């Protein structure tokens, strides 16, 4: 762009004429995300109590290697270095974690809450230097659509987990029988909420049709774009609901597995 001389001044950190509780939303975001990061990291490092009957904690799904019956390729591989901590969750959590970290909604939220960039709208910032997502490192956020591809695969896997959570072993006959426990509902809602969040992704909205200038030439693209737009309008809501519920799903399976909670069989 041509050089224009625009002599204006910045505010100091936190300086504003706003009278409302502008700090409330970034503080709530900071506490909500911090609580999730602390709990999920703790749960991922446990490597235990992540299954109960047919239930598998979403933090550990898919279980690529691991000791449980849900494991795809058997127990921890022999070639795994002895000095490196093993937990099935650590093999997979980078994918949904990366999807959330690079999500357009979360980016805007944590730039405010964690980096005060800005602390809130029309509030002074702590730093003068600014590169935004224009250069390294934040330019890497553009990888988001690749995490989307993985997140879509995870939705299929978690849907399959919800199906498996509908099968129970009959204590008398030893046969598998269809049923519904509270855990079934917890894991089914988990995939519904995660799906609602994922299907509202801005990258998905672009990929299904938003990138076209003439949508009407492809009725399928137009229909998909409208559906994704519906979810996209509620992206923030589903981002928080699904974040809370995926953590709760892990907690539910964990507490059932530890014998602290009993899973109530409904059907």
């Amino acid at each position, binding site marked *: *762009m*041509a050089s224009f001389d625009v*002599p204006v001044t910045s505010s100091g950190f936190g300086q504003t004429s706003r009278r409302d509780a502008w700090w409330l939303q970034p503080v709530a975001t900071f506490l909500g995300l911090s609580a999730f990061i602390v709990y999920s990291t703790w749960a991922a490092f446990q490597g235990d109590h992540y299954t109960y009957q047919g239930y598998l904690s979403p933090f550990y799904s898919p279980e690529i290697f691991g000791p449980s019956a849900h494991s795809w390729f058997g127990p921890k591989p022999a070639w795994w270095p002895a000095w490196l901590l093993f937990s099935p969750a650590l093999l997979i959590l980078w994918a949904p974690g990366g999807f959330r970290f690079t999500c357009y909604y979360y980016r805007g939220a944590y730039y405010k809450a964690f980096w005060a*960039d800005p602390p809130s*709208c029309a509030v002074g910032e702590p730093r003068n230097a600014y590169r935004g997502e224009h250069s390294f490192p934040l330019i890497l956020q553009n990888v988001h659509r690749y995490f989307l591809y993985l997140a879509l695969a995870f939705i299929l896997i978690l849907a399959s987990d919800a199906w498996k959570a509908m099968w129970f072993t009959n204590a008398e006959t030893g046969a598998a029988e269809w049923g519904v426990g509270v855990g079934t509902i917890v894991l089914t809602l988990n995939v519904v909420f995660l799906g609602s969040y994922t299907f509202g992704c801005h990258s998905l909205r672009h990929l299904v049709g938003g990138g076209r200038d003439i949508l009407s030439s492809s009725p399928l693209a*137009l229909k998909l774009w409208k559906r994704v737009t519906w979810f996209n309008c509620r992206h923030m809501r589903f981002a928080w609901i699904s974040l809370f519920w995926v953590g709760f799903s892990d907690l539910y399976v964990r507490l059932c597995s530890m014998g602290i909670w009993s899973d109530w069989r409904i059907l």
Partner: protein
Amino acid sequence: MPDATFRIWRGDASGGALQEYPTFYENGMVVLDVIHKIQAEQAQDLACRWNCKAGKCGSCSAEINGKPKLMCMTRMSDLDVSQPVTVQPMQTFPLLRDLVTNVEWNYRVKQEIKKLEPRKPDAPDGTWRMQQADVERAQEFRKCIECYLCQDVCHVLREHHKHNEFAGPRFLIHIAQLEMNPLDVADRVPDLKDRHGLGYCNITKCCTKVCPEEITITDNAIIPLKERVVDRFYDPLKKLFGG
């Protein structure tokens, strides 16, 4: 008549201060009415830009209690008058006097954007055919009244003064309107990345929050443009397989 105290910025580029004006207002008044009342009764030299008083000309942009708003669309009944009401000029643009800023920079940015370049006419009579589904997206952006409140609140301009590198949300929706126009064949994607500094936007959605026309600036314009830039410059699979 209820009373209120207004604290209004008085001064020019060389300096100034907030001055207090105790006043009365009537039910139904907006902030611009009270500013005019103060201008008529107490401060005849108070500079303030306005025109339509109907939220359509975008002239009376200011910061009311620290929030970028149109003075003509801010009802007194929505403000807490138990404390002084602060009215300041937009911070992002150079101050001329009192509540009036120089927004000329915006006009110069607009001149740098590639104009609409229509495809060849669809019919022999030189006309085009468009479907409503294709023009709806771009129509949202045509609601813009160029009040520049989004430019004012954008921290890239307000705090970091990237006026020479970043076009700002108002012009990103202008570009989105052109880019998504089904008739347009011009390519603005390389300019978006470099000349207009799209990457500086870190999606804090402040522009969307202050827009008096309730245009969904970030979700419907800026992020779709970011995705078009990703298509062209940052997606190796897209480059490999085309599309």
